[in-house]
């Protein structure tokens, strides 16, 4: 499976048809997904029909000269928390086991208008709450680099599908690192846009002040094209901002000259795996060789990101998930009264992590505790946001590791939720501050697991961080390494 850019060129030149491409994608899914388990739903018939339609359109355009949409015939996968009209959308939860959305998420609708062929929906931690996909009600996704390890999460299905080259691109969502961390664990490129850049309409809400729609691809160049097509104001999401949409292609600076990159000392703590720190440092050395000015900076409130996030996100989740009550969608656990239906449906059909976060958020918002927990967390969020504002007065972007370690073993953290939460320490600050981030591969540890680096930029400066990631990818080939999931088979 080639990159998006290469695939689109092959389609445009007539070297391959969308049907051939889609059939190839479906075949790869059939062969590899029993091992990786990236997909919750695959839609072969609808995908092939959409591919045939794309091929017809392209053939007709050769005669008429009609302009074609930019992604015409490109197969992609979509994380199962994004609504897809007519395609089951479970959020990795039993409470939405059979839910068929009557509408498309705006990001999905815009990509469909741009011509994509949706081949299926990818696995996720239930309602995107998790860092490993182990919280999915439908089983864990396996990291294609080592099937005994997690792919990260919550967009672990999308990251694994792109890493195993089942699809050239997959949509994800990032509330606390859920695009960037699985991208890092799976050795792919993952973009989390600025909060407000891409409409959240149809993204089934987890933490509304933090949720963003992003994309996982092989390259920064591909992510830039997707961002261009998904971004922009939407009347259906009042938080989507009316700001100029970033360009479809990167400006192609020659090198890093003139770019100032800040490295926050708080991200190189004692707990970090030495190979991760070394690979990130080596990537920064290369950027310096290519002309970047690297400067140590401080984001002094970094250590508070985990406690702030694990109050604010659960508080927002406890309100957002109140809608799941067995009345309008999902299976119902019967009881004598309406209240009984609510308690029983929610108690039995939400998984353990979702219930944990709903309870945590309910507590943080409850009478007598609101000021001490939720109120205080919102104030400390201001301090974290100000750390970034100050940093961006000195530097153009911030570079940091994505996670303290490479992909951990399945089951390593499942007994101890707090230890899992601490895995998010490097990704949460960008969500709390609302800034964009891109994660991309910069090496491997000594057991051949990918290591990622993230660049974070000022609000609405995805162009800067994507361009820097692109320059790095022009000079290296880490992003071209691919796993062979069949290797582990006996």
């Amino acid at each position, binding site marked *: 499976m080639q990159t998006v850019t290469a695939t689109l060129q092959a389609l445009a030149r007539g070297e391959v048809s969308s049907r051939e491409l889609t059939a190839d994608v479906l075949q790869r899914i059939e062969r590899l997904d029993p091992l990786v388990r990236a997909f919750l739903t695959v839609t072969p018939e609808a995908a092939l029909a959409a591919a045939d339609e794309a091929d017809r359109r392209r053939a007709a355009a050769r005669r008429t000269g009609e302009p074609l949409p930019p992604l015409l015939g490109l197969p992609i996968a979509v994380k199962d928390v994004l609504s897809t009209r007519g395609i089951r959308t479970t959020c990795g939860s039993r409470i939405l086991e059979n839910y*068929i959305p*009557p509408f498309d998420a705006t990001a999905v609708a815009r990509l469909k208008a741009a011509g994509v062929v949706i081949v299926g929906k990818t696995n996720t931690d239930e309602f995107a709450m998790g860092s490993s996909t182990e919280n999915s009600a439908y089983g864990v996704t396996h990291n294609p680099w080592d099937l005994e390890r997690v792919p990260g999460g919550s967009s672990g299905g999308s990251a694994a599908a792109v890493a195993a080259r089942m699809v050239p691109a997959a949509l994800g969502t990032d509330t606390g690192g859920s695009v960037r961390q699985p991208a890092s664990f799976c050795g792919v490129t993952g973009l989390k846009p600025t909060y407000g850049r891409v409409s959240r309409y149809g993204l089934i809400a987890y933490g509304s002040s933090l949720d963003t729609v992003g994309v996982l691809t092989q390259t920064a160049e591909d992510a830039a094209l997707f961002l261009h097509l998904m971004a922009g104001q939407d009347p259906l999401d009042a938080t989507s901002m009316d700001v100029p949409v970033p360009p479809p292609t990167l400006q192609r600076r020659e090198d890093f000259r003139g770019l100032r990159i800040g490295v926050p000392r708080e991200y190189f703590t004692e707990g970090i795996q030495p190979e991760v720190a070394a690979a990130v440092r080596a990537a920064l050395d290369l950027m310096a060789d290519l002309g970047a000015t690297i400067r140590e900076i401080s984001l002094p409130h970094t250590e508070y990101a985990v406690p702030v996030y694990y109050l604010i996100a659960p508080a927002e989740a406890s309100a957002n998930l109140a809608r799941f009550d067995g009345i309008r969608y999902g299976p119902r656990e019967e009881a004598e009264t309406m209240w009984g239906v609510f*308690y029983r449906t929610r108690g039995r059909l939400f998984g353990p992590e979702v219930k944990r976060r709903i309870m945590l958020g309910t507590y943080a918002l*409850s009478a007598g505790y609101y000021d*001490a927990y939720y109120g205080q967390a919102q104030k*400390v969020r201001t301090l974290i946001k100000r750390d970034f504002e100050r940093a961006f007065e000195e530097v153009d972007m911030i570079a940091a590791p994505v996670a303290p370690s490479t992909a951990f073993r399945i089951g390593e953290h499942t007994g101890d*939720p707090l230890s899992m939460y601490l895995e998010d320490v490097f990704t949460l600050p960008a969500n709390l501050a609302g800034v964009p981030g891109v994660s991309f591969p910069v090496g491997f540890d000594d057991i051949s697991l990918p290591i990622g680096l993230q660049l974070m930029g000022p609000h609405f400066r995805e162009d800067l961080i994507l361009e820097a990631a692109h320059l790095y990818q022009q000079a290296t080939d880490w992003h071209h390494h691919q796993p062979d999931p069949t290797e582990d088979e006996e």
Partner: protein
Amino acid sequence: MALTREEVIHIAQLARLELTEEEIARYREQLSDVLDYVARLQGLDTRDIPPTASVLPPRTVLREDEPRPGLPREEVLANAAETEAGQFKVPPVFGERG
């Protein structure tokens, strides 16, 4: 801070979650761990710091008040456990099913 069993039950009631005895015991321990951990925020002086509810500049988004079609009723109702006469059907709010 350690939550009591009664506090866990109270939170579950506020959140409309039916829990088993085993879940009550487990959440009591796990939520207490997390609350202990987040308590480190209490040490920060935030007297003059405004809260952040959204990272976006505060603004009001308006649109013309024009009617437009809603979602297709049949597709919406198709997801419900119980419907009647083109509407969602809710179990009795008070008392038992008649």
